[in-house]
Structure formats: structure tokens, C-alpha cells
């Protein structure tokens, strides 16, 4: 279960050079508009034939410019959910759903179809025509149509971009459910770090036609070079955690994660549930000695791996156990503490700043 791509393609003054390998799970392809995300997945889908390079999907070479291999799109077993849904207007929802299914070399059984229809909440829409659907419903039908074609890889090109916040909230749980229940590599194009941090296992970062970084979502989001691409502040720390215990009397919940434990305000979720946590870089303090008599509940020992200074700030990346954290402090603080790569420090995280960043993953 993998996507292995190295392609170059030029049109006009735009040059694409995508080079990355990703495995199973959901991979987000992140980058500003015009960075080559859609061009890259068009190449993977076979809708674009690049000038040079090779593409290997799950071990099968579908494109190799040297060997003259180009497997046409219809034989790639790649399901593509386009930004604008692209439902066939002259067919009902049901006929749309079964379009790829009917042409698939191995067809899903009726119970399997029913399960997907149910998962996406499409039962009541089957007899309708696409023009009578809302934007969110169209996205769900497009997703169902792609899944019913028994693909080996699922490509999603900003399936939420055309939707307003309410519709996004309607679709996101479906995508999360999909990621966790369908064993498919999913490549998800997005220019929203919110979506990326919520959904992705791995991230490929695109900038001006090049894939500039790739890795786990935890590593890429804490990469101090990421702000060069986003033009914004560091996104912060993202990691997966599990609810270990609730202390209702004290109003706190204790989370286990790869870097230790994290105390957050009391959650109304069951013990053992997996969560994804985000800690903003501005909410992390650094200390050289372990502070005592302090209100913050979380004091995590770690060592600095990287520091980047901007005009006003110093962004510090540290590893607490296996978990990378990012702290944004002033340049004055960095000077005062003489922070440098390799130093042992303590990261201080106020519990109350963590709680709102928690999303249920349902894994």
C-alpha cells in the first residue's frame, strides 16, 4: 500500500517536480494554490502524462517515461473525487454511484455497497438527480461513487473547498470514518492546515511546483521551515493521545502520549479513547530548570533540535520523548536563556490552552 512518485512536467512558466513516497493511511498534500497539488494528483490518476519520471502505485508501475509505460486512467484503479463533485447530470444518484462499480474488474457485493451507502448517509438520495442535491450531498455522492469502484487508491482534491463551514462539519466525520474503516491509501489535497492536522497521518508539502517536505503529520507540522510555505506563524504541535484517567473532583483529564502525560481540563469522553491534540506554539513556555510552585500542570522535559529566528520571534523545536513540540518565544527570551540546539529544556503547557484543540478521532 504505497504511492511512489518522481515526475517532472513543465507547462508555460510552471515547472512541476514532485518527488515523494507515502504509505498506507491518509496522506495530506498541502500547499498554497498554484503549488502543483492538483497537477500532481492528475498525474497519479493518469489524467496528465508528465514529461519525465515514474509513478508506482502499490508496487505497480503505472508510468515510466524511460520504459515508455503509461497505464491509461481507466486501468489504474484510482478513484478520484474532484473538487466540484462532477456528478453525471443525466443519471440518478444511484446510477452515478454504480457507474464505476459496473466497470470495476472486481465488484463489491450488495451488502458492501449498502454499507458504503449507509456510511455516507445516501439512502434517501438514491432516486434523486444531481441538480436537486445540496453541495454537501453532492460531495458525499461523489465520495460514494469513488468508493464503489473498488479502487486501490483514493484521491481527494479539496473535497471540502467548495463547501461552507456547516457543510464541512457535515462531511468531515465521514472522511474520518472513511480513513479509519476503509483500508485504502488516501491522498488528500488541501490548503487548510486545520483539515490536514485533523485528518492526516502523513503530509507532503508542495511549494511552487516542488514537493519540499514529506513525513508524518507530527513531524511536518512542527517543521520550522513550514512557515516559509504558509507565510504564517508555526502551526504548533499535533500529536495523538489516549485518555488514561479522569479526576472529576479536580476537574482534569489525564492523557497518555508518546512524550509522556498531558493534563487537560475534564473531558466527557470515555477512558481509552484516542484523541488528536493540538498545542499552539504561542502557548508553550520554555525553562532551563524545572520550575516549581507554578500553576501550569504540564512540565515536559525535552531537548532542542532546531531554532529559527524571525524579525520578532524565535521558534524553537524540541523533542519530548518521541513527540516534537514547537514553542514561539521572543528573541529577547532566547538571548536571555542562551538557547541553542542540543540543550535540555522544560516545556511548560497550561492545561487550559490545550482543551479547545482536541478533536475526537474515533479510531
Amino acid at each position: 500500500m504505497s504511492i511512489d512518485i518522481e515526475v517532472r512536467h513543465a507547462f508555460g512558466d510552471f515547472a512541476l517536480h514532485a518527488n515523494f513516497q507515502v504509505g498506507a493511511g491518509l496522506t495530506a498534500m498541502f500547499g498554497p494554490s498554484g503549488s502543483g497539488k492538483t497537477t500532481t494528483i492528475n498525474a497519479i490518476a493518469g489524467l496528465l502524462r508528465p514529461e519525465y519520471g515514474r509513478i508506482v502505485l502499490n508496487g505497480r508501475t503505472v508510468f515510466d517515461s524511460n520504459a515508455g509505460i503509461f497505464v491509461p486512467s481507466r486501468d489504474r484503479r484510482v478513484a478520484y473525487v474532484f473538487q466540484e463533485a462532477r456528478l453525471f447530470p443525466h443519471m440518478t444518484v444511484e446510477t452515478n454511484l454504480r457507474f464505476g462499480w459496473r466497470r470495476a474488474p472486481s465488484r463489491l457485493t450488495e451488502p458492501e455497497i449498502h454499507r458504503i451507502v449507509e456510511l455516507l448517509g445516501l439512502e434517501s438520495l438514491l432516486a434523486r438527480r444531481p441538480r436537486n442535491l445540496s453541495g454537501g450531498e453532492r460531495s458525499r455522492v461523489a465520495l460514494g461513487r469513488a468508493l464503489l469502484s473498488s479502487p486501490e487508491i483514493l484521491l481527494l482534491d479539496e473535497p471540502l473547498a467548495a463547501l461552507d463551514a456547516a457543510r464541512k462539519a457535515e462531511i468531515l466525520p465521514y472522511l474520518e470514518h472513511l480513513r479509519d474503516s476503509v483500508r485504502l491509501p488516501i491522498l488528500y489535497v488541501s490548503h487548510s492546515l486545520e483539515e490536514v492536522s485533523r485528518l492526516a497521518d502523513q503530509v507532503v508539502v508542495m511549494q511552487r511546483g516542488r514537493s519540499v517536505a514529506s513525513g508524518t503529520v507530527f513531524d511536518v507540522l512542527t517543521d520550522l521551515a513550514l512557515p516559509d510555505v504558509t507565510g504564517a506563524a508555526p502551526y504548533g504541535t499535533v500529536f495523538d493521545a489516549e485518555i488514561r484517567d479522569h479526576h472529576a473532583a479536580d476537574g482534569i483529564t489525564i492523557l497518555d502520549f508518546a512524550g509522556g502525560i498531558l493534563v487537560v481540563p475534564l473531558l466527557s469522553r470515555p477512558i481509552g479513547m484516542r484523541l488528536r491534540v493540538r498545542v499552539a506554539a504561542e502557548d508553550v513556555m520554555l525553562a532551563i530548570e524545572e520550575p516549581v510552585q507554578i500553576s501550569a500542570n504540564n512540565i515536559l522535559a525535552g531537548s532542542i533540535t532546531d531554532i529559527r529566528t524571525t524579525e520578532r520571534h524565535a521558534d524553537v523545536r524540541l523533542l519530548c520523548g518521541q513527540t516534537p513540540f514547537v514553542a514561539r518565544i521572543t528573541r529577547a527570551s532566547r538571548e536571555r536563556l542562551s538557547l541553542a540546539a542540543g540543550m535540555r529544556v522544560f516545556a511548560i503547557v497550561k492545561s487550559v490552552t490545550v482543551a479547545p484543540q482536541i478533536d475526537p478521532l474515533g479510531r
Partner: protein
Amino acid sequence: MDVLSPPEIEALLLSLKVSAVGVGCALPFATLAAAALARSRFPGKSLIDAALHMPLVLPPVVVGYLLLLVFGTRAPVGAWLLEHAGLRFVFSWTGAALASGLITFPFQVRAIRLAIGAIDSGLGEAAETLGAGRTDRLVNLILPLALPGIVTGAITAFAASLGEFGAIITFVSNIPGETRTLPLAIYSALQAPGGEVEAARLSVMSIALALAGITLSEVVDRRARHLVGQ
């Protein structure tokens, strides 16, 4: 007076038959030509495009003359067809149908081509990623979505074909009951002394038919658009 004479009914029915067969037989070719022109790139495309539009600008008499040159009983194609298929176009209603179909061919191609060109090419890409090959996409996506254009193109061509005169009279002559369609009947009536009333009756009928054709194409276009989800 209000009842048509047998020769007039004959001319009317013949006209309908000639146009229906001519336009009907041309329709598949027009559809394929339109699909090729709208969706593919190939060498000599603009030349073929221009050639397909020739009947629109050539004098119909010239078209009739060219048909004679190709399909006359002693012309190469005509002789071969007569010998091997027993098919004779000259002096026959089938020749009138051929001439009508050819003259109105550009009407059909243009309407269908516009309809195909208006289809979102993204739908074809979506169908391809879902496993549909070229022919599959043409049959299940392009043609159904172009249906309004195909139907209106055919009806417009049919209405226009009812009026064809020059190519028919040049190619297959003016034989009552065989090639004398409405326009030829009107012309013949005007040539005969005292035929003005008959010519007027036939003309009124022609106008009514043309109006009915245009109206029908509007109605059918609307229905077909609804049918294909637009």
C-alpha cells in the same frame, strides 16, 4: 377547396418521406462528425470542418450537379451501386433523400457540435477515472448529454430539408409521385396556366410545416434538457 387534391397529398407525403429518410440517414454520420470535431484533434481537421460546411454556402444546383457526377448511373460510384447493390439514386426519391440529407448535413453537425462542446470536459475525466474507455464515454456520457442538441439539430434539418429545391431538381429531376416534393410541386403549379391557387395552397402548407418544425424543436429541446438534468 379546403381538401387537398390527390397530387398535392402525394407531394406532401413524399416531402415528409424524403426529408425523414434523408435527415434520419444523415443523423448518425452528423453525430460522429460532430463528436470528432468537438472532442478530437487530428491533422486536416479544419479542412474537413470546411468541407462539411460546403453545402451551406454552395449553390444547391451545384450540389445537385456534383451528385450527378458521383452517383449518375454512368458515374463510377453510381454504376457500382447499381450493379452491386441494385441501388439507383437518379430519378428516384432515394436520390431526393440523399440530396436533402447532404444539403442539411451542416445544420445537424453544427447543432450537435455545439451541444457536445458545451459538455463539461471534467465529466469525461471523471468517467475515465471510473473505468470508462473512449467508446463507453461517447455512448454513455457524451451522446446522452448532447441529446437536446442532437434532437433540435435533426428537427431543424428536417424543417429546412422540406424546402430543398435546387439540388433535388438538378439531381433527380421533377417526376410526379417520385421526386416532386412540395417546393417542386409549387414550382410546377406556377409553371402551369391557372395553377396560382394550387401554388398558394401548397405554400401555406409549407409555411405551416416550417412553423410546426421550429416550434417542435423548441419544445423538444426544453424537454430533452430537463431529461438530461440541465
